[in-house]
């Protein structure tokens, strides 16, 4: 792989690039979907490809492809150079320099036993998730789908400025969508778990979680429209934290698309809240020794004691913002060029257990699911209104289920209104890699009937 990447960099230079970078990746993935006690599908896939970034002076272009033959890579390098010629000059464009050579970190990113799991054994694991859900509660009518998926990836990165590195990592997850049958109709509940390999998954717990979430929603009604305390469970809090992570990238800030712009040092959250970006956490799915352009990953404090400490930078935004890269260049495989984004976002857990957090809320709403996070949030102002479901909180305890309501606020007001942070932190892989506990927001608009 590293030889392939070297060849690509040479070809790009030969095609007229003043600097070049090649990212070669190979991914072997498997997926099992089960339904009704039977295997619905069993998939195996190998993907190999390369992406080349070419700079011609201050212009940059990108090309990717799957043809890894000598001629294929040469043609691809030429296309990357052509793309650079079409782009306008950008004074901040350029690859990272060699002074930031990647460390040979041993982060424990791979589960060496992954390959020992046969497709039959993986199918059995997925079936066990489904069985656990059906056994957990008599009101569970079925399971829409139970899924196991894994991926083992190898990455090599080479640049004309002397960066060379490679690493391997693996990940897997299991989830299901359980269906509960109530008098008023069906309810769904999501259960999930993740790890570096299947041994880290607890199929019984995943199935049970889906069943409990679905059953809890039976008979749900609409809450009265009002402003009240709202508790976000970790899956919901993670969605908001991922959005906040996007708004904290230097790219969003520099392009005037962040409610956090020009707020460094300010109190943007309640002092109980601390948020880090951690590209080295062994449990984080995006952890790696170096980022998507070869800069070492690291741990960066974003919000400490409520105050905004820094934004997230890749090389381009660092050049532009007169800052240093925080190792936050990311890409979703060889088909995408690097751009700045959060790695793993980690909210520091507090001391209150979940029951205590509800007690602290007194009377309000517990939100266990949100829909429309991507359509219902204005990325520039941070104003949002999203669909939600959950439970009423009465006298500090969970009460009747609620659905078909919205919660509305804006991201900064919400962070400032966070009154307490739970102790129940977990990893949530939707829309980003986030580890967060439940959050108690002192006041939010709830719109129902």
């Amino acid at each position, binding site marked *: 792989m590293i030889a392939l990447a070297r060849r690509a960099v040479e070809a790009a230079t030969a095609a007229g690039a003043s600097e070049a970078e090649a990212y070669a990746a190979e991914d072997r993935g498997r997926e099992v979907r089960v339904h009704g006690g039977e295997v619905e599908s069993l998939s195996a896939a190998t993907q190999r490809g390369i992406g080349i970034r070419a700079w011609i002076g201050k212009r940059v272009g990108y090309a990717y492809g799957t043809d890894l033959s000598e001629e294929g890579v040469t043609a691809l390098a030429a296309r990357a150079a052509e793309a650079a010629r*079409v782009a306008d000059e950008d004074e901040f464009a350029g690859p990272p320099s060699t002074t930031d050579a990647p460390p040979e970190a041993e982060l424990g990113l791979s589960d060496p036993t992954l390959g020992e799991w046969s497709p039959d054994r993986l199918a059995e694991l997925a079936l066990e998730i489904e069985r656990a859900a059906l056994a957990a509660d008599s009101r569970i009518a079925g399971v829409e789908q139970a899924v196991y998926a894994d991926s083992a990836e190898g990455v090599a990165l080479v640049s004309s400025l002397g960066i060379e590195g490679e690493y391997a990592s693996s990940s897997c997850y299991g989830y299901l969508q359980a269906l509960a049958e109530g008098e008023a109709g069906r309810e769904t509940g999501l259960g999930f778990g993740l790890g570096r390999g299947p041994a880290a998954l607890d199929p019984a717990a995943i199935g049970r979680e889906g069943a409990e979430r679905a059953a809890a929603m039976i008979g749900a009604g609409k809450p009265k429209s009002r402003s009240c305390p709202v508790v976000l469970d970790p899956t919901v809090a993670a969605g908001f934290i991922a959005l906040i992570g996007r708004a904290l990238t230097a790219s969003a800030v520099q392009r*005037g698309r962040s409610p956090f712009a020009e707020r460094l040092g300010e109190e943007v959250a309640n002092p109980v809240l601390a948020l880090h970006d951690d590209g080295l956490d062994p449990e984080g799915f995006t952890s790696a020794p170096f980022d998507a352009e070869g800069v070492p990953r690291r741990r960066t404090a974003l919000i400490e004691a409520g105050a905004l400490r820094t934004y997230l930078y890749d090389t381009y935004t660092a050049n532009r913002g007169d800052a240093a890269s925080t190792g936050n260049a990311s890409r979703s495989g060889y088909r995408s060029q690097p751009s700045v984004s959060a790695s793993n976002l980690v909210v520091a857990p507090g001391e209150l257990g979940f029951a205590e957090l509800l007690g602290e809320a007194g009377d309000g709403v517990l939100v266990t699911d949100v829909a429309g996070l991507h359509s219902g949030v204005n990325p520039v102002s941070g104003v949002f*209104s999203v669909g939600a479901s959950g439970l009423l909180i009465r006298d500090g305890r969970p009460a009747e289920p609620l659905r078909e309501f919205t919660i509305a606020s804006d991201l900064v007001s919400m962070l400032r209104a966070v009154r307490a942070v739970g102790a129940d932190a977990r990893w949530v892989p939707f829309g980003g890699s986030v580890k967060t506990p439940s959050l108690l927001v002192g006041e939010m608009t709830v719109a129902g009937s």
Partner: protein
Amino acid sequence: MSELIDAGVAERVLAAALANGGDFAEVFAERNAGLTMAIDESRVEAVQAGAAAGAGVRVISGATTYFSHVDGLDPADIERAAGEAAAALRSERAEPRPLSATRTTPLPIEVAPAEVPAERKADLLRELDQRGRGAGGEIAQFTASYAEVRREVSVANSEGLFSGDDRTRVRIGAQAVARRNGTVETGAETLGAHRGFELFDNDPGSIADDASRKALTLLDAGPAPAGSMPVVVGGGFGGVLFHEMTGHGLEADHIQKGASVYIGKLGEQVAQPLLTAYDDGRLPNEWGSDAIDDEGVPTQKTRVIEDGRLVAYLYDGVTARREGAAPTGNGRRESFRHLPVPRMTNTYIAPGDAEPEAMIAEVKRGFYAVSFAGGQVDPATGDFVFGVSEGYLIEGGRVTRPCRGATLIGNCLEALAAIDAVGNDFEMKTGVCGKAGQRVPVGTGQGHVRIEAMTVGGTEV
């Protein structure tokens, strides 16, 4: 039409796929090439050329699908993928039928985008940028994007089908940010089709005007109302509401898994008689159209709701075979790396006979949702949510002021039954629909549609 794999190779691959038994085998080969670029801060950037080729092989045995895909079109690799798909089967060899090639007619493309110099595409973005920024001093930022892709596909299966398609799509998008004091608002518009570069012959810059106009309009917006009220949904992209709240629930995989509120409703009155709706993969050069679906079945026009009665579901091969129904040409996949699933093509509510102005005039206090930022539905429960990107308050039968941050939420069956007027106007818009981790181009359309009562989630209680 170009064939990505020849018949001999396809037959060998299908034989290898059925070596350990199975009821059905298929090989889907694809070659794609695309170019994307953007303009941001008046600078052309993110110029990206991509190309991929590969094949996916699946074997179906009973209720189980075995799938394997490989990058590249080397016959030896594809045969190996077939062996991998077959590896978990334990039955007697099955014999595929000899292939018989079907001629298809891909949608006509006048100007192949790949033949147009990249510099002209960059200039198109510069034109959008000028138009968008020219809309007024309060336009603080403007971005636009260009995308072209050509996908050649070949599909062969053990029932003897051997077909192919050649698809070219182009799309541009514009996004404006307007700022006044502390208020920041965004507006967006897109234009796309299953067509060549000739799509841009007719004033493509108008999408930049539209995006900027929306952002500027919202600067005057007040808070959105909260509560239940009549909602008039605009034409064109308003069709995404029907796509989400009904279309997905009619996809046969959701039906067969018990995860749709439309189960057992075939033949029943689910809407008022004024409503008729279609899924049509044959609309000429429309964004969601193709000559064949990704299983080789010719696309078709399917009436899904006739005078308020539910009359059809949307099938791919697997779901059609399972219940002995005829496939409807809705088996679509994002690429050779994905299994086909039932998907919409172009879904729309047919024009009615109400005048849009009259539909609004009859509303005392309500909400006018012109455009959506997106939406989501849980097909099993029927609960949906939509973010409104352009919305107005209706008071005393008149549109009075723009609202920001509104969301529509409701339940599919209730909202569908509550449609009490369908406008005589009509427009189609382009969308990209996500399902089962796959994104495919879909068209949505309608004229103005009024829903008697729906929950608007705003901040003004």
